[in-house]
């Protein structure tokens, strides 16, 4: 079975992590990789003062979630993420989608579609 595999990358506010994770779990996603990144986007950080000197913050703390899925649920993931993250304000985040050439599960040696099926 040679279905197309995609990676969905969501970059958004750190505080949304819990809620996003739960929402993704509910649509059956179990594999997620999270990293802390610094984002530079349309959103500008509040100017902070340190000892009276302005401190421009143009790198804001963000989280990046990477989710690799088979073709069908890509849209579902995107819709779910949009539902959870959308506030209409700057800083809501961006979603990037990439093609994945292959996936291997080390534990079983399965490849491709099989490697993404959850079972113990």
């Amino acid at each position: 079975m040679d279905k197309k595999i995609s990676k969905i990358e969501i970059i958004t506010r750190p505080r949304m992590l819990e809620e996003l994770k739960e929402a993704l779990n509910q649509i059956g996603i179990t594999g997620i990789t999270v990293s802390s990144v610094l984002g530079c986007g349309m959103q500008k950080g509040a100017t902070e003062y340190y000892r009276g000197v302005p401190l421009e913050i143009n790198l804001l703390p963000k989280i990046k979630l990477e989710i690799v899925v088979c073709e069908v649920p890509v849209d579902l993931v995107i819709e779910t993420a949009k539902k959870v993250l959308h506030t209409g304000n700057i800083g809501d985040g961006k979603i990037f989608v990439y093609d994945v050439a292959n996936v291997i599960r080390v534990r079983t040696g399965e490849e491709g579609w099989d490697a993404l099926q959850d079972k113990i």
Partner: protein
Amino acid sequence: MDINLILNSMWTLISAILVFIMHAGFALVEVGFTQSKNAVNIIMKNFVTVGIGVLAFYFVGYGLMYGNDLGSFIGFSSFMLHNTPETVSGVSFEVYFLFQAIFCATCATIVSGAMAERTKFYAYIVFCVVATTIIYPLIGHWIWGGGFLAAMGFRDFAGGTAVHAIGGVAALIGAYLVGPREGKYKKGKVKAIPGHNIPLGALGVLILWFGWFGFNGGSTLDITSPLTAHSAITTLFGGAAATLSALLFSIVRYKTPDAGLTLNGALAGLVGVTAGASMITYMGAIIIGVAAGIIMILAVGFFDSVLKVDDPVGAISVHGVCGSLGTIAVGLFATDGGLFYGGGFSLLGIQTLGVLVCISASAVLSFVTFIILKKTMGLKVSQDHEIDGLDNIEHGISAYINL
């Protein structure tokens, strides 16, 4: 057995121990308010300062400061404690020396803060030797060792000038000559380089405050005198008042309760009351504290943005400015002789003159030292080393490992 001698010696010994822990305070304040990539370097400088300070004072400094007076200008005898008396100022000689030796290292530490994050380790070590064998003992002799300022009636109870103003001025010269940190002034604009660990810095301030009760309280060398407890209270009030005034002034001026300035405020107040701790009233201490908190913030802004001297921890403003002004304020607030207590202008004049003499001397001596260092071994590390951090380059180690 003289009971007063024992009591006072005991108190001075305990005070010396309290002053010792101030070195932990200085180290933490410096570490907390600078970048993590230089933390090991700062730690090393602080340990070296203690090591050099006390030994230099033993071999040379004590003799120059408290040895037999030569022309009201310098002491000269008692090196390595040869031929010292059994008791001094009503305490046993040993505790007197201990207290003085631990004081000595403080002066150099102040300089280390202002020059942090870009100064060559070995250059600092050389300066530290000069500061603890010449600068501090010489000026200290004038004030406390029977020199001409003492004769003139100049009053500096616990070292508002002898330690803090002198150290702060040397810090100004050093910070000016070594130049600012990479990225501090970009295209004429001042950039903030935030400290990396505020809780550690705050712990440092509280440890310093704790030790200051020994620094000021111990400077009476006399636990039988009510002045000792009085000094402890003025120390408490000076620090408390300045904490609050710096907090409020930072809110007024920068619209935010600034942590760095509030913590510096506590120190500014402590420095401010140091020169007069035993001579001012409680309200005097509170007023000086309030003023110190505000003046320190103005001074930080002035050095940072106007003079463009880069002082990562605010040592010049805290120690130099508040130390000097606090000593002059003795001429206003001393209950015995101060202007506000009907003493006229004479004490005020003496205090001002004394401070000017001391800070000029400190400025000249440290300027000469740093210029020689700059021309010979160099003061500043290379830009690459500075950007990568002194820890990896000079010490081959990182302060923190997280992975």
